[in-house]
């Protein structure tokens, strides 16, 4: 329980801050964890000492709703592409590649470790040549370059935990390899696939450098690039709106992680001993 409270604390802090008045927020003598009156006192009717002004600013005076939608679209597309390519790749490396499969898997994983700070300049030129600047397609094209290696490596380990005999039995019964993969392997691999879905989606939500470099118009941005650009103006931070903007996408992600926590852990550790 104390650990849960500790982990939930940032959410609570953001929740309180997003409804704070400027006067309450700026006064260092006021408690940052409660709503205070002008003298710093707490009242049980705390809603009378809070304001929705900054959340309204976020939704009405910035493109925040559009950023949320863009993030969702990019995340969904990237997850779909990642699964489409990483599942057969992981399966092939686990089953068909023989002894060098493990080495190839590690090599693919290493690609994931190349930082975007090294890649964004050359990729920027590529995106320009493809005429994808300022388009969500740029992100949909580039993001799989880091989600697929990780997903392939993760799924490879997971597929290895599934006994070969299950597939052999299906093949003997006349199923094709594709059918055996679809009917036998996929249902068993659900935790691993779910892990890939959540992890790839989280990476898309968090990614900043590509989102910032390839997209310059506010309407086309995702949350990770939109928030620091439109809510930090000059040297002024719009703290309450910043807190609201980060809390809103964090809540569904946190709930998603929480709902599938067991499967998520199973997905990550599934291939650990093979």
């Amino acid at each position, binding site marked *: 329980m104390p650990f849960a409270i500790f982990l939930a604390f940032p959410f609570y802090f953001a929740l309180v801050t997003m409804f704070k008045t400027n006067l309450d927020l700026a006064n260092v003598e006021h408690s940052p964890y409660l709503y205070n009156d002008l003298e710093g006192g707490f009242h049980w009717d705390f809603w009378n000492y809070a304001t929705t002004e900054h959340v309204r600013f976020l939704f009405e005076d910035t493109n925040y709703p559009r950023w949320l939608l863009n993030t969702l679209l990019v995340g969904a597309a990237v997850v779909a592409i990642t699964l489409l390519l990483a599942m057969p790749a992981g399966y092939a490396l686990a089953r068909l590649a023989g002894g060098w499969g493990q080495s190839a898997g590690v090599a693919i994983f290493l690609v994931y470790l190349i930082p975007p700070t090294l890649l964004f300049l050359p990729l920027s030129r590529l995106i320009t040549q493809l005429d994808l600047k300022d388009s969500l397609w740029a992100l949909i094209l580039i993001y799989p370059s880091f989600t697929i290696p990780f997903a392939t490596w993760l799924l490879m380990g997971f597929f290895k935990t599934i006994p070969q005999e299950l597939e052999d039995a299906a093949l003997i019964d006349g199923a094709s390899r594709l059918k055996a993969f679809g009917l036998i392997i996929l249902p068993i691999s659900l935790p691993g696939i779910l892990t890939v879905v959540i992890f790839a989606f989280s990476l898309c939500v968090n990614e900043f450098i590509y989102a*910032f470099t390839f997209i310059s118009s*506010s309407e086309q941005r995702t949350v990770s690039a939109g928030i620091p650009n439109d809510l930090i103006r000059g040297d002024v931070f719009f703290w309450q709106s910043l807190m609201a903007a980060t809390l809103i996408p964090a809540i569904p992600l946190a709930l998603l992680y929480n709902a599938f926590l067991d499967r998520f852990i199973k997905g990550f550790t599934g291939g650990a001993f093979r």
Partner: protein
Amino acid sequence: MSDAVDELDSPSSALTRGDLLKRGTAAAFAVGMFGGLAEKSFGFAGPLQFAKKQLAGELRIMQWAHFVPAYDQWLDNVYVKRWGEANDVEVKIDHINNALLYSTGAAQVAAQSGHDLFWFISPPSTFQKQVIPLNDIVQEVTKKLGPMAKVARKSTYNPRTKQFYGFPDDYAPDPVQYRRSFLQEVGGSLRTWDDLRRAAPKLKAIGHPVGLGMSNEIDSNMLLTSLLYCYGGFIQNEENRIVIGQGSNRRGAIEALQVMRDIYRNGMSDEVFAWTAASNNQAFLAGRLSVALNAISIARSAEDSGNTALSDDTWLASIPRGPVMRMGNEHVMGVFVIWKFAKNKEAAKKYLVDQMLNYREHFVRSKYYNFPGWTGAIKGGFPAIRKLSAQDPHKPRGKYTVLTTIAEKYTTNPGFPGNTTPVIDEIFNTYLIPQMFAEVAQGKATPAEAVSGFARKANALYRKWRNQGLV
């Protein structure tokens, strides 16, 4: 250095904008008549949306997210739309966090693709080879509005190439912002740096330290270079040669480093070494700081916060005087460049000219933050600017009028008394100045050692840019 505008007026100068338009029109007419390609020769992407207009296509502009959101909303939704309709150009304006401007500019150069007009928060002279010279529009605006502000000219003119590599749209004076009640309580004054040195320990003792950054960010850069000027520790001379390691400049720089070390040790806290550009705002608005150097975003944020006790007690003053002079850098020098790869250079040039010729509303809507690169852009010049800023309703009444004094007398460009060369730009963007001050304040180097080390690095940069023909 000869006067840049005089050079532009000389017979040997480049084509004027008028000449260019005349010749371009003649050429277009010829091609149209004989080639049957009139539409292409004018570069029209389609039929005119608005009849009898000269420009066409799309114009993409990148600039910072202004600290006054209402200014950006007016700019994007009113001004730019109006201008686009009047010129048959579809204008798209993007805003980014000012800390990301340089990296974004570099990314656009690497990709050779991006916006037609790119605004920088300080003179981006390291990008000179990537942009087109703007002598023609500078001359056009100068003819109509009178001379460009000296700070603007020195920021954007390269005497070696005799070119304006950027268009100095706006600048922000850099006042001291202080809590009057705290200064009164300790009996302090901000007339000179020595006054501040004496007041700093008393201010810290009452729980309100001085807030002068020594960190890798723009506010520290501007303030600390200003301090060097005040003590005569100039980085370069009028001919743009590095002189900080020599003679009186070295002595002045050492003295400035000692002053800042004293103020830090007795009147500040360690946080100033890790500050971002927003940190002094936040600490001031939280009621902790007694003194900060920043553009008026601190005072304006205090007003917007509704904390009248704080905003009424926040007063503005000119930078303190040093033993050599009272002089400070601009806080922001808004410079537009047009990339060589820009697709709509003509529209970009006309946008800049038109904006400067109608700058009054920009000044007012930016809450007196954006001073025009040409003082004459506001009819009546500085006296009119002073009158406008006197109308501000916040207390103490007339507090923003001091900005006019600062702009007129005590504002200069990074690199003073020389120009803002690529050497100075790189010194700024690698934060060598705050690092030099921080080394001394933290006791890692003596002032003499720090100045010697800085001079070595500055000379290396000078040789690098000299070899490239830009200084």
